[in-house]
């Protein structure tokens, strides 16, 4: 049987299902008779998660003017689904602990993911997207397919990575040549296995090819440009540090001008170190 993105996920029980707590959260969210309070109760039952969430909603990442000291308060300000996406984003590290960690510089990997999430979230706010935390989640998971590649197909993955230089084609294209699919497709398979909304699946799959994400062109363009921005800011490295070609259609969809970039850069910088401390080191 040949290897497919879906089979890679299915054969890896550690990651083939969502962290337990999210099944509980989703159950409460979908329960007609539940209230904010009950969602908050479920989240609060995971002490380390709620601590992490409270730290992050009180950090420059949110820049909220008052202290938020309960999950209930956090939900009321951030929104239920937004807080769930944020919670999932901050749980990725634990979920992928032990996956490929002797083959990939995990600190650098997560620093890039975090930088990309922060940049994409700021861009989403500029584009007035309804749920900006979802973009933070996208940033955190957009490259995890590469961890799975290194865990399961380490020789080919290492070969593609070793070849990668300023003159070679993009790493993602080399993955397709050597393996038959790329890390975006593995990430999409993961989103399917976790039953995440289609938007997450498609955006992760096409984050290197934002023009092919038919139903989610704007969303994918935002993540694609966030990825590019994190590379430009040299925040960590998840394998391919090289800045790709900026497609004019992508740039127009994101709809900012070069003059906006310094302010966005500054905003991302202001949020980054704090987020590293809370999510990576916390």
């Amino acid at each position, binding site marked *: 049987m040949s290897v497919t993105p879906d089979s890679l996920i299915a054969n890896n029980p550690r990651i083939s299902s969502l962290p337990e707590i999210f099944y509980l959260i989703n159950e409460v969210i979908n329960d*007609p*008779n539940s209230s904010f309070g009950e969602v908050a109760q479920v989240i609060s039952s995971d002490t380390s998660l709620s601590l992490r969430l409270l730290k992050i909603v009180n950090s420059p990442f949110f*820049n*909220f*003017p*008052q202290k938020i000291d309960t999950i209930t*308060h956090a939900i*009321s*300000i951030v*929104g*239920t*689904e*937004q807080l769930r996406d944020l919670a999932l984003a901050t749980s990725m590290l634990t979920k992928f602990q032990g996956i490929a960690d002797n083959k990939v510089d995990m600190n650098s990997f997560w620093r890039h993911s975090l930088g990309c999430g922060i940049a994409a979230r700021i861009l*989403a*706010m*500029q*584009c*007035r*997207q*309804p*749920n*900006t935390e979802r973009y933070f989640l996208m940033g955190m998971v957009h490259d995890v397919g590469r961890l799975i590649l290194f865990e399961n197909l380490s020789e080919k993955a290492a070969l593609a990575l070793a070849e990668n230089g300023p003159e070679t084609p993009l790493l993602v294209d080399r993955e397709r040549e050597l393996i038959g699919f790329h890390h975006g497709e593995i990430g999409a398979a993961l989103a399917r296995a976790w039953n995440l909304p289609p938007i997450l699946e498609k955006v992760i799959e096409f984050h290197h090819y934002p023009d092919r994400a038919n139903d989610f062109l704007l969303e994918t363009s935002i993540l694609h440009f966030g990825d590019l921005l994190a590379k430009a800011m040299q925040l960590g490295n998840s394998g391919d540090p090289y800045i790709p070609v900026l497609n004019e259609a992508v740039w127009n969809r994101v*709809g900012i001008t070069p003059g906006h970039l310094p302010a966005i850069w500054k905003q991302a910088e202001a949020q980054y170190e704090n987020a590293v401390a809370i999510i990576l080191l916390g």
Partner: protein
Amino acid sequence: MDKKKHPHEDSIESLKTRLGHLEGKNRWYYSALELVSSLGEIHRNSNHLEDPVAIFRESSPLILRLASFETLALFLADPETSRFECRTCEPADRTGTVQEEVEQWIDNGTFAWALQQPQALWVEGMQTGHWYLQGLATRSTVLGMIVAHIPAGTGRPDGDASRILTIIAQHIAQAMENARLFRANRAQNRELEELVKKRTQALESKTDELETRIREINDFTYLASHDLREPLRKLTLFGDRLKSHLGKSIDKRSTDYMEIMTRSVKRLESQIDGLLNLSRITTQGRPIQKVSLNRTLEFAINELTLEIETTRGTIQHDPLPTLHADQEQMQQMFFHLLQNALLFQKKGVSPEIRVTAYRKENGFWVIGVHDNGIGIDLTQQDKIFKPFERLHSAGQYPGVGMGLSICRKIVERHGGTLRVESDPGKGASFFIELPEP
């Protein structure tokens, strides 16, 4: 989770409850969908509602369908001062309360934070109920904030309703921004119209001024020619009297002097006549009407029968068009052009004249009068259209030098041009270009 096992009946009961809930939710989604699809109304209305407050008032029923706000207010940033002003509040007697709350949120930073968020911010209070802060912004501009209140004890809208409220707010913001751009665009158009109007007025007054001056000049020429003829008539009259008074006692030299005097007076007279004719072209023009140039040319040829006979000249012509012109002046023009062509002839060569006609792409008719005469030197070609300019002495070729000036003036009065092309010694071609719509 599993504190107690549900008996079978209970689980059917709970399934029924769940089904009922899902059906209810489904109905809600349908009506939400309807509402979302009616959002286009906001933009259609904003075409005639230019005031952002009016756009907001028109859209507020949509907001109230999703949430039972008991107070609904609009704050807009003043374009001049950047200050947020409460522009409308329903009911009006809550304005003070809303303003106090907003001041407090501005003070503690909540307001600025909400302004940057794409989604709404709910500020909860135990006794005060739920306050709703939704920034109004397009991708490029922040316009203001919707501030609303739900009293304590009433549930606040769920996530889906909140999301649709945000979508409505985005449409309102876009409609306000479009209306602003529309206003700016119209103001610019008005400015442009104003400018065109001013320029047109300036041009019109300039034209009036020019017309007055032309009239003055014509009047002067006309009067001068009349006033000059009077003393000339006296000169001729008293010259004749002097002649008969002196009778036979007049000597040969005196007779010669008298001859020169009479000739000069005659020439002056015909020059004045020419001048008079020239000024009459504009002052005494006939109305413009449909004129057959074929017939007009025939009349001119008839007038020249004597000259044609004496010079043994021939005149051939293409079929000429019928166009809008002053019949008499056209005849006069042909008369002068043909007369010139007959008179300025090489010795011993009989004049051969051709009149041609064709229509240019721009609708102008070009009438050519071609001769085989002495031609005109290139350096002289400008001169010939000036009054009293003569290239040759009166003895060599007769005339007072007014003919071509008159022709040019006639053509110009018809909105056309008259020009000459010539190789000296090989004849000349005069081209009359006349517009015909």
